[in-house]
Structure formats: C-alpha cells, structure tokens
C-alpha cells in the first residue's frame, strides 16, 4: 500500500442555508478544496451523504454531484454509513489512492437537512436505528443516547455538570471558528436548564440540524510532493468497525465498541498509541457521546471521560484538546459532511491554519466519526511531516 | 358438564372522579353522584383499547385454566361497542396474541352492552353441541360518552374473558335464556363518534322491561326463584338501576353487592355484567348458584344460571382478582388529560 496525504481541504460556513441546494453546498466546498490543493486533474470522487433521498428526494448523488462539479465522466460513488458516511467516504478514497488505483481522489460529504419539517428530519435521522425494535417503540436519537447517559451516570457517577462541560467547551471553541453554525457561548447552567428533550439530555446536549458540506483532496505522497505547496499531512492509520445496531443487543450500554475496535485498527496501522495523539475531532452528536468516545479511544480510563471534561483536560489549552472546531454541537452536524469536516479541522491544525483555535505545534491528530447510536465507526490518524 | 373453565378480567389504571367532569360542565356533582350511584370511572390510556384489554383478560383466564392449550380453543368471540376497527375483527389479534391461531373460528359481536354475553352464549352452545373443545367469550369496551352528556360520567373501560369447556369446569352453566325486542333506547349511527339515547326512555321500556323479562323467563325455565340464588349480577349502566331491578324481581342487596362494580368502575358496556360475574366468582364458594342477566340497548338481555364447583378453590387465586384491580394501583387524572386520552380534543389534522 502507498502512503496517502491530504493535500487540500475546503468547507463553507455551516448553518440553516435556505438559498443553498444540496448541489450548491457540495460544489462550493469541493471547489475550495480543489483550489487549496492546487490540483487540476482528479481521478475519482467519493461522496458521503446519509439520506439525500429522504431529505430532498434525491438519490444518485454520485452522478448529480460529479455532473455539477463539471467533472463527468469521472468515477464517482456515494457512500453511506448514517452519520459516519463522511468518514467512510474518506476511507474509500484512502483505499483507492493507497492501492495505486488512483493518484488524486476527491472525498466529500454533504447533507441538506432544512428542506423538511422538524418531524421529517427526526424521521430521516431515525432510519439509522433499528426500525422495528427501537424506532417502532418511539425511541428517538436523543432517547437512545439518553439511555446510554443514564447508564453511564449510574455506573460511573457521571454528573449533569460533566455533560454540560462538554457543551460549554465546544461552544467556546466554536466561537473561534468562523465557519461554525453557532458562534455563541454558553454556561453550565445554560446547558442544564435548556428544555429537556429526553431525560437527562436537554436541547443543549444535542447537536443541531444543519446544512453544509466539506471536502478534501487525497493524493499519493509522491503526487503530493510533486504538486502541493502545503505542509505534507499524511493519513497514517485508518480503522473501520461495526457494533450491533440496537442498544439492547450490545454487551454494555456505556462502551461504544465500534469506536473502540476502529481505533485499535487505526492505532495499529499507524504504529501509534492514544498517548501519541495530540488532539482529536470526535463525534459529539450528544455530549455523552463525546465523554464515552474519549474513553473508548483510550484517552481516559472508562468512566473518567466526564471528569476529564469538567476538569478542562479536553479544552483548547488542556492536555488532550477535543473538538477544537467546536464539534458537532457548535459547528453543526450536516450528517454526511461531518466526517470530512473533522479531517478539514485536523489538517488545518496540523498546518498551523486554525486561526484563533490554533494549538501549539500539534503533530498527530485523530478523527472519529460514528454512525447512529454507535453501530459503525471510522477513525483516521493523521500526522504532519 | 359444560361451563366456565377459566375466567379473567382487566381494568386499566386511570380513574376520573364525577366531580372532575361535573366541574367542567357546571353540573352539580353531589346530585349526579347520588342520582347515578357513581363516584368515579376507569379511563383507558391511548395505548389501551378493546383488543389490548381482551388480551390481558384472556391471559388471566388462561392462568386460571392451566390445563387448556390455547391451540385447542375452537372459537373466539369478542363483543364490544368499541372494536378498534369497523372492519377487521378484534378476535383475530387476541387469538394471535394468545397463540390460538390458526385452527379457530372467529367473529366479532355487537349489541350495545350485551355483546359480551352473546359471545359467551355462543361458545357455550358450541361446546355443548360438541363442535368445539373450548371457546372464548369476551366482553370488552372503551366506551364513549358525549361531552357534557349524562353518559360521560359513566362510560368506562374494562374487559372480562371466559373460557368455556367441559373438563375441570369451575362454574357449570345450568340454563340460558334470551329476551329481545326492537327498542331504540340508545344507538350510534355509522360514522358518528358519540352515541345518542332517548333519555328517560332508556329506563322502564328498555332496561327494566328486558331484564325482568329475561330474568323471569330464565327462572321459570329453570324452575327457580330469587331465594335459590346466592348471587345475581345485572348489567350496570349506573349504580342505581341494578339495585332497583333486583328489588323489583325479589333479590336482596347482599345478593347483588359482590358483582356491583359500577360505583367505582363506571359502566364498562360489553364488559359490565361479565365483569360483575368475574368479581362474583372471585368470592364464590363451591355450590354457590349465580344468575347473570345482561342488557344491551336496541334491546335485549341474555340470562345464565351458573353453579360453582369445587374447582373454584384451586384456581381462584391464580390470577388477579377483579376487585383488587379496581381498588389498587389507581391513577387519578383531570378532565383535560381525560379528554386528550379519549380523543375528544380537535387536533390540527
């Protein structure tokens, strides 16, 4: 397998973007990524999107987006893994370059969520869970994560303030990210007192509904050295894994096993351990998710993720900065785009282009993108050369 | 010997008091309570209906008949005024839930409040004729009363389920009798949400005429008198009528009391007299003679005479008793919640 680099990234501002269609969102960020990479020829493209069919009645994105990017007859494929669609698309692009099949691949993610009512969005998102054994009974996504939160609080003494601390930190980081959907800050009380959605999770524990896209250009290391003016960022490790889709089928409600396994695979491939990771972009679809993920990625002992958040260990100036971009909570969560946006943030940090959020000399970053209630997960480890 | 081999009831948990309803409509609660002999009634939640209550009542009946293999039940008849579908029988779902399908006959029955006893009558006949080994006769309702109408105070929810058979009988059926005329005292037209009634016309020419006609015909056929019975159960549209008709016929309050659930339960329509029977069986002793006379508007009455056997002592405690479900685990709701649960609030769609 050849080594693969990320030579370009592009992302537009995320939010409720009434005048942008799904094709506008994707093409705009793809053009930004192509420009950033300084490439001309692209061999292939992968698009991550959870459910353009349910949101805008449009399938066959592979063709639509290749068409509107002006690149037909390029090879193009749509990748789906619920909220991990973006990360899965990156992995597919990685494999195509690493295998030698292509030299330059565009990987992107997009989701247009505001053309349906709140109810329509809830319905579309719920298709990531077990329809007949979870959704049938009236479980919602906040409900599924709330079940995990209640259990985490019961088993490890995780508190309301620990959950809130994650939201406070991510909004703080997001306030420094001009592309984030929300640039407002919040407080521990503000999070705890927001309207309850599914006990114990309030509206402020939940990531929002967002329109947006993010793209990256992958290239072989040789191609990268040949054409790229940017610092070289290599993808050292990739790991992809699954877990039983329904919560009641899992061995534990407090361990996200797909993330754990995916990270093991990525660490092994990259020759790295959790201690080697300087910072990470993780899938905080709900505050409790960030807490459990930081444990399952090996950054903190099981049960201590909440403590770490409350103690500031995961803040911008902490020992393990998590979600410097503002995370899904503040940056937004256009489902299929999230996994690629995580790559965008890691690359910017590694190149020193993260502006007000810039960390001091980060060398190794990790992205963790997760589908549904954790039924699938994909982890990437990147290093700047 | 043919009779009841298993019986069970189900009462939903929620209750609403007469005062709560009277408050909204500006009625005088104490006089309603006195006049109707009624304090509170049961209310089904949105996830409870004739089918769900029939399943739970039947599971209780099966607990009292552990010798009965559901696959040997040859017929299932559910009588109700509130079948969840206008076309698609309630009996099919209940039969599937208890594992009695597919070799089974099914039909839904309707005759206002006596639809439950109709099912009982028919399965009794089928078992007696040797056509089936066991049969299920069920009376269940989540009846509706129009807002502000007198019936709103009493229209309640509940179910009673009886397995008829000829082995390990706990109450032998000695005699049956039916009395029926075309009397429009209470009705509901197709597509109407609430029923209508003829006010005082529902009394003497309807309820009293048919119950007395049936009870007298039944006793004459069986060669018995009121004093021969330990207990009697009449249909209970309110707490007063059954006591009045009992007195008219020569029964004592003590004979009526164990089966008189209406004051705290309300009128469970097709479940009304059947639940009076389950409640009476719960306290009966071997040898007790019980008369049951139902009443359905339209109008008619079905009468039964049962004699309790020794078997009652073995099975009585195997499932929850009716009075226990009536008196325990109650949750009182206000009128707004009641109206929401009963679909009386106009929604956007």
């Amino acid at each position: 397998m050849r080594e693969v680099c990320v030579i370009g990234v592009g992302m537009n501002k995320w939010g409720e973007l009434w005048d942008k269609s799904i094709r506008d969102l994707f093409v705009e960020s793809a053009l930004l990524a192509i420009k950033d990479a300084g490439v001309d020829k692209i061999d292939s493209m992968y698009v991550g999107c959870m459910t353009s069919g349910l949101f805008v009645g449009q399938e066959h994105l592979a063709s639509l987006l290749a068409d509107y990017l002006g690149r037909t007859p390029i090879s193009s494929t749509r990748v789906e893994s619920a909220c991990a669609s973006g990360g899965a698309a990156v992995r597919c692009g990685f494999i195509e370059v690493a295998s030698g099949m292509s030299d330059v691949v565009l990987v992107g993610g997009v989701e247009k969520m505001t053309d349906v009512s709140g109810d329509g969005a809830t319905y579309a998102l719920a298709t990531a869970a077990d329809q007949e054994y979870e959704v049938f009974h009236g479980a919602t996504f906040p409900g599924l994560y709330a079940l995990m939160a209640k259990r985490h609080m019961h088993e490890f003494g995780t508190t309301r303030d620990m959950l809130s601390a994650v939201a406070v930190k991510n909004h703080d980081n997001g306030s420094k990210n001009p592309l984030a959907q929300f640039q407002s800050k919040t407080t521990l009380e503000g999070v705890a007192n927001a309207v309850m959605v599914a006990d114990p999770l309030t509206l402020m524990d939940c990531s929002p509904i967002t329109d947006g896209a993010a793209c990256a250009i992958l290239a072989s290391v040789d191609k990268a050295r040949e054409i790229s003016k940017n610092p070289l960022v290599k993808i050292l490790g990739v790991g992809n894994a699954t877990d039983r889709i329904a919560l009641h089928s899992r061995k534990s409600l407090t361990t996200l096993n797909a993330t754990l396994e995916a990270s093991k695979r990525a660490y092994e491939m990259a020759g790295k351990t959790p201690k080697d990771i300087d910072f990470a972009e993780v899938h905080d679809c709900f505050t409790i998710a960030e807490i459990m993920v930081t444990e399952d990625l090996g950054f903190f002992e099981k049960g201590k993720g909440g403590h770490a958040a409350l103690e500031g260990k995961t803040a911008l100036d902490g020992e393990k900065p998590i979600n410097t971009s503002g995370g899904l909570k503040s940056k937004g969560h256009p489902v299929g785009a999230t996994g690629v946006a995580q790559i965008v943030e890691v690359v910017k940090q590694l190149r020193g282009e993260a502006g007000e959020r810039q960390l001091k000399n980060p060398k190794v970053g990790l992205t963790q993108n997760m589908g549904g209630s954790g039924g699938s997960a994909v982890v990437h480890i990147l290093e700047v050369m | 010997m043919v009779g009841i081999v298993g019986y069970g009831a189900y009462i939903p948990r929620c209750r609403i008091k007469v005062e709560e309803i009277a408050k909204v409509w500006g009625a005088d609660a104490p006089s309603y309570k006195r006049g109707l002999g009624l304090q509170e009634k049961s209310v089904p939640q949105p996830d409870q209906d004739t089918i769900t209550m029939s399943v739970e009542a039947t599971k209780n009946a099966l607990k009292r008949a552990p010798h009965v293999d559901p696959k040997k039940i040859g017929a299932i008849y559910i009588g109700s005024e509130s079948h969840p579908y206008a076309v698609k029988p309630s009996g099919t779902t209940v039969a599937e839930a208890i594992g009695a399908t597919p070799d089974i006959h099914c039909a839904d029955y309707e005759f206002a409040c006596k639809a439950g006893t109709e099912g009982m009558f028919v399965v009794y006949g089928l078992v007696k004729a040797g056509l089936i080994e066991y049969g299920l006769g069920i009376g269940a309702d989540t009846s509706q009363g129009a807002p502000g109408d007198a019936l709103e105070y009493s229209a309640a929810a509940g179910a009673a389920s009886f397995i008829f058979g000829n082995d390990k009988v706990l109450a032998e059926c000695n005699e049956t009798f039916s009395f029926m005329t075309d009397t429009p005292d209470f009705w509901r037209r197709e597509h109407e949400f609430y029923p209508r009634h003829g006010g005082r016309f529902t009394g003497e020419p309807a309820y009293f005429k048919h119950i007395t006609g049936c009870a007298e015909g039944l006793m004459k056929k069986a060669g018995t008198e009121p004093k021969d019975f330990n207990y009697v159960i009449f249909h209970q549209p309110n707490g007063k009528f059954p006591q009045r008709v009992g007195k008219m016929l020569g029964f004592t309050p003590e004979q009526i009391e164990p089966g008189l659930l209406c004051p705290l339960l309300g009128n469970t329509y097709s479940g009304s007299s059947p639940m009076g029977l389950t409640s009476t069986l719960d306290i009966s002793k071997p040898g007790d003679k019980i008369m049951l006379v139902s009443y359905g508007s339209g109008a008619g009455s079905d009468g039964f005479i049962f004699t309790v056997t020794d078997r009652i002592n073995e099975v009585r405690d195997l499932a929850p008793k009716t009075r226990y479900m009536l008196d325990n685990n109650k949750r009182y709701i206000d009128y707004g919640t009641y109206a929401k649960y009963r679909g009386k609030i106009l929604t956007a769609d």
Partner: protein
Amino acid sequence: MFPARVWREIPQRYRLEANRCPQTGEIYFPPRLVCPEGKCEKLEPVKLAETGTVESFTVIRVAPSAFTDQAPYPVGIVKLDDGAKMMCQIADAEIEELKIGMKVKIEFRKVQSDGKAGVHAYGYKCVPVRD
C-alpha cells in the same frame, strides 16, 4: 406503516418469540438466522420471559409524530429474567418512580397507529410490578 411490515413482526410483538444458540445459550430478540458469536445456524425457538428489571430508561419529551399525543413517555431497556434484553416503553409508571433496577412485567398494548385510517400496530410494553 405498510401493513406487511406490521404483520411480519407479529410473532415477536404479540408472543415474544425469540431464539437461542444451543452452543452459547444466549437468547436473541429478534430471532436471528445466524448466531453472532459462533456463526451457528441451528438456533432453537424460545419464548421470552415476561418479567424483568429496567437496565436503563429515559423519558422522551420531544416525540416523533406518531407519538406526540403520548409524550412524555418513558422508554427503557429491560433485562428479562431469562437474561434476554429488549427495548420497550414503560407504561403505567409515574416519572418519579422510574429507576434503574425496578421490577417490571410485559403487558400487551397498542404501540402505534398509522394516522386516522391506517393499521394499528400492537405489541409489548412493560409495566411496573407493584406488589
């Protein structure tokens, strides 16, 4: 909610039909064609126990459209007495009495209806055991 989808789940929703791997002894609900532990394809039919305890619960306050009239309602993961786990609503319970470890039993209820004219979908919920 197309009728065929509702009908297909009847053995599970009405009668709690599951299956069990003879090698590992683990019970699967819904029943599986292949055991996820050892890949055994000869799983045996079993019926789930009807009593258990609550492993976790939440109260859904912002509900999907089929359930808005019922909100708030609790949803829980129940561990039945035979070791099998399932997800269902917790009915007949006051929100204050919900706690991890509480004893519950299965009851037959109507889980949802397809609007005013579609089919009813019946199935299992659990209720607190109060004795």
